[in-house]
C-alpha cells in the first residue's frame, strides 16, 4: 500500500431504501492512526454508512477502498477479515463468559484443535497483555457481566485490538457512560491511536468530538456536507453544518411569570428508593432535577404519578390533597408524565399516530359512548400540525417515525390530556439538534401559558440552560437546591455525588 494513501477511502457511496435515499454519493477519508469524527442529526445517514462498512448491507453504488484494496460491497465476515471492527451502543458481549473468553470469542486458542480443547492459560495471558497494554485494570478471568458498562466497552475494544483490527468504528460510545468512564474511554482511544489504529468516532456530543478527533466529517440528509480538520473549526460551525441553519441560542429559555403553587410534594418516601422528597412547583416554573444515573429521579416521578406505590407522603395539586394510587389518578389531577424511554413506555409502536395521540382519556372524544374515527383523526391532526410533526398521515405507524417525531407524538398525547403539570424525563434523549430546540421552545410555551414543568435531565448543560430552579438528587434524596443564576457544573456535580458544598 502506498504510504500516502489513506487507510480508508469511501467514494461516491449511495444507498437507496424504498422511498428513502439514505446515502447519496458519500465520500470519506481516514488515515492510519487517525481519530475521525462523524457527526450529523438523526437520520443524516451515519448508521447506514457504518452498516455498509461493517458489511451489514451492500451499497447501491460507489466504492470502499480499504488497506489498498477496492471493494464494491462487504459482508460481515469479509469486514472482520480485513480488519474492520465496530463497537455498538448495545454491547455484543456474553455476560456469563469471562473477559478473556469474550475477547477470543470466535478466535479461540486451542490446546488441541481436533479435540476442541481450549488453552485458557494462553488466552488469559494474551488477554492480560492487551488489557494492561492499554492501561486497564481488568482481570482476564473476571466475569464480563460483573463489570460496569464502561469496562465492558473497554473489553470490546480489546477484542477488536486482539483481532488486529485496523479500523475501529465506535457508534455513540459515551451515551451510557459516566464522565469518569468516558475519560477512560478517551484515554484508550488515544492509546489505540498511538498504535496506528484508525478510529471512526460517531457522536452527538460535539464537545467530545472536538476534544478527541483529528478530523471530522459532517453528514446531512444522506450526504457528506463537509470534511475538515478539527483544529480548523468550532462546535458552532459543526452545528451549523449539521442543521444547515444557525442554531442561535441552544437553550432558548424564556422566563415566564411565576404563579401559584401547582404541585406540592411533602415527605415522599419509598423504602430503599426514595427518602423524604419534598418540593414545590409553581405555575410558570421550570424545575430541573439533576443527578447521576440511578439517583432516583425517575423513581420519584413514577411514584408521584402513581406508576409505583409510595410508602408515605402527601401530594397536593393546586392546594388540594390528592390520593394517587394509579396513573389515572395523577392524570385526573392534571399531571402528565413523559417517560424516558418512549418506545417501551410512551408509545404503542404498532399503532397509528392518531391512536397514540389520543390515548389519554380517550372517552372524552366520544359522544354518548360512540367514538368517531374522524373526530380522533381531526383532533390528532390539529395537534400534529401545531407541533410540526413530520408524518405521512394520521394513520402512519408510530414505530416508523424518527426519534424526534416519536417524541412529538408523546408530547401531543399529553398536550391533549390538558394537563397543567408536565414531568419530562430525559425529553431530548436520542433526538437530533433541530428537534431538541423545538422541545425547548415547547417547554417555554407551556410555562408561558401557566403550566408547571419538571424536567429530569442527565445532561448538565441542558438542565442548567432550561431550568429556573434546579434540585439535585443523590441516592433517593434531594441534596441541593440551586437557582439558575447560581448554578454551576461543579456545584451540581458535588451535590449529585453526595458531597456537600458551600454555595
Amino acid at each position, binding site marked *: 500500500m502506498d504510504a500516502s494513501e489513506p487507510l480508508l477511502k469511501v467514494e461516491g457511496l449511495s444507498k437507496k431504501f424504498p422511498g428513502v435515499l439514505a446515502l447519496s454519493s458519500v465520500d470519506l477519508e481516514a488515515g492510519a492512526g487517525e481519530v475521525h469524527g462523524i457527526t450529523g442529526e438523526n437520520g443524516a445517514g451515519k448508521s447506514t454508512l457504518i452498516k455498509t462498512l461493517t458489511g451489514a448491507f451492500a451499497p447501491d453504488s460507489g466504492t470502499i477502498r480499504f488497506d489498498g484494496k477496492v471493494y464494491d460491497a462487504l459482508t460481515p465476515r469479509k469486514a472482520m477479515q480485513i480488519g474492520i471492527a465496530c463497537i455498538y451502543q448495545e454491547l455484543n458481549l456474553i455476560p456469563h463468559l469471562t473477559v478473556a473468553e469474550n475477547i477470543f470469542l470466535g478466535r479461540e486458542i486451542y490446546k488441541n484443535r481436533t479435540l476442541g480443547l481450549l488453552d485458557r492459560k494462553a488466552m488469559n495471558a494474551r488477554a492480560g497483555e492487551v488489557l494492561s497494554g492499554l492501561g486497564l485494570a481488568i482481570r482476564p478471568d473476571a466475569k464480563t457481566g460483573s463489570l460496569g458498562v464502561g469496562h465492558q466497552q473497554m473489553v470490546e475494544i480489546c477484542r477488536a485490538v486482539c483481532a488486529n483490527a485496523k479500523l475501529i468504528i465506535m457508534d455513540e460510545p459515551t451515551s451510557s457512560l459516566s464522565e469518569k468512564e468516558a475519560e477512560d474511554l478517551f484515554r484508550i482511544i488515544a492509546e489505540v491511536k498511538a498504535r496506528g489504529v484508525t478510529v471512526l468516532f460517531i457522536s452527538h456530543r460535539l464537545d467530545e468530538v472536538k476534544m478527541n478527533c483529528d478530523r471530522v466529517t459532517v453528514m446531512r440528509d444522506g450526504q457528506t456536507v463537509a470534511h475538515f480538520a478539527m483544529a480548523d473549526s468550532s462546535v458552532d460551525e459543526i452545528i451549523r453544518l449539521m442543521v444547515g441553519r444557525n442554531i442561535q441560542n441552544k437553550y432558548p429559555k424564556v422566563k415566564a411569570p411565576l404563579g401559584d403553587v401547582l404541585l406540592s410534594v411533602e415527605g415522599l418516601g419509598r423504602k430503599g428508593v426514595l427518602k423524604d422528597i419534598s418540593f414545590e412547583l409553581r405555575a410558570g416554573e421550570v424545575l430541573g432535577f439533576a443527578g447521576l444515573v440511578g439517583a432516583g429521579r425517575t423513581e420519584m416521578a413514577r411514584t408521584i404519578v402513581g406508576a409505583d406505590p409510595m410508602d408515605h407522603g402527601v401530594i397536593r395539586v393546586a392546594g388540594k390533597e390528592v390520593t394517587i394510587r394509579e396513573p389515572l389518578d395523577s392524570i385526573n389531577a392534571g399531571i402528565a408524565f413523559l417517560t424516558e424511554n418512549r418506545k417501551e413506555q410512551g408509545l404503542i409502536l404498532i*399503532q397509528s399516530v392518531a*391512536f397514540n395521540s389520543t390515548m389519554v382519556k380517550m372517552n372524552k*372524544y366520544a359522544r354518548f359512548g360512540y*367514538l368517531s374515527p374522524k373526530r380522533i383523526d381531526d383532533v390528532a391532526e390539529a395537534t400534529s400540525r401545531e407541533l410540526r410533526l413530520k408524518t405521512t398521515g394520521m394513520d402512519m405507524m*408510530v414505530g416508523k417515525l424518527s426519534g424526534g417525531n416519536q417524541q412529538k407524538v408523546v408530547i401531543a398525547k399529553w398536550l391533549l390530556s390538558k394537563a397543567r403539570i408536565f414531568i419530562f424525563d430525559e425529553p431530548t434523549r436520542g433526538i437530533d439538534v433541530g428537534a431538541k430546540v423545538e422541545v425547548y421552545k415547547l417547554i417555554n410555551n407551556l410555562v408561558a401559558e401557566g403550566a408547571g414543568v419538571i424536567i429530569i435531565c442527565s445532561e448538565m448543560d441542558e438542565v442548567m440552560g432550561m431550568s429556573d430552579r434546579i434540585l439535585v438528587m443523590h441516592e433517593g434524596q434531594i441534596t441541593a437546591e440551586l437557582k439558575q443564576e447560581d448554578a454551576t457544573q461543579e456545584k451540581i456535580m458535588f451535590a449529585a455525588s453526595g458531597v456537600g458544598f458551600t454555595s
Partner: protein
Amino acid sequence: MSKIDAVGLPMDTAKKAKSPAVTGQLYRLGVLLSLLLLCCVMSVLSSRFLTMDNLMNVASQAAVSAIVSIGMFLSILTAGIDLSVGSILALSTMTMGVASARWGFGPTLSIAVCLGAGAGLGFVNGILLTKLHLPHPFISTLGMQKMARGIALFITAAAPISMFPDEIQFLGNNSVGTIPVSFLLVAVLYVLMYLFLTRTATGRHIYAVGGNKEAARLSGIKVNGILNLVYTISGFTAALAGLVLAGRVNAVYPLAGLDYETDAIAAVIIGGASFFGGVGSIGNTIIGVLLIAVLRNGLNLLNVDSAFQTFAIGAVIIVAVAVDVLRQKILKSGR
C-alpha cells in the same frame, strides 16, 4: 387522508408505513380469497356442497365456533389466551341443565344462569391473572380448563340432561324463514363486537393493552379492568355458544365443547391476529371460522376420515401463517 408536512414519500411507502390496525383490510382480502377458492374447490369436488341446505348446515355448525371465537379473539388481542372456553361452555350449560331440569327454573332464568355462570367463570379467569398475578393467562386458563371440566363431570356424574323447553332451544334450533336464528345471532354479535372494538373507548383500550401494556397503563388505562373484562366476555361468549349448541342437540352434556379452544385459536390466527397482541380484526376472525367450517364440511361430504380433518386443520394453520410471514417479507424487502 390529509398529510402533515408530508416528507415527500411516495405512496407505496406511505402504505407500508400504515399501522397494521389499518392494513388489516389488505390481509382480509387474502383470507377472503382463500375462503372463496376453497368453496369453489369444494363445490367442484362435491355436488352437494353448494346447496342451500348444506350451506345453512355449515352456517349453523359454524355458529357455535364463531361465538366462541369472539371471546378467543379478545384474549389473543390482549396478548393472552383462553384455554378454558370449551370447559366453560360445558359447565355453564350443565349448570343451566341442573337449574332447569332439577330445580325447576323457568326458561328465562335458566338462560340467565347459563350466561351468568359463563361470565362468572370468565371473571374468575381474569382475577387469577390480575389479582393473583399468575404470569400468563395460559396458566390461569389451563387450570380453569381442568377445574371447570371436572366440576361439569361431577355435577351429574357424567350424565347428560336433555328435553329442554322450546325457549331454551330457540337460539340453536329455530329459524327465521330459511335462515337459522344462530346465523343471525352470529351476524349481530360480530357487528356489535366490531362497533365495540372500533367505536368505543373501551374497545380501543383493549387494543392499547394488547399493543403495549405498560404504555397503556401509564396513559391512564385501567389495564386490570380491561383484562378482567376481556376474560369475562370470553366466558360469556363460551356460555352463549353452549346455549346455541344445547338448542341444536336438545341436550347438555359434560363433555360438550371438548377441544373447542383449538378450533377457536385456529380461526383467530388464520384471521391474522398476532399472538403478541394489539393486532387483529374481528371481521377477519369470522372468515377464519368459515374457512375451517367449510373445510370440515367439505371433507365430511367427501366422506374423508375424521382423522384427516384434524390433520387438515393443523396444516391450514401452518400454511395460513406461513403465507402471512411470506407476505410481510415481500412487503418489507421493497419492490
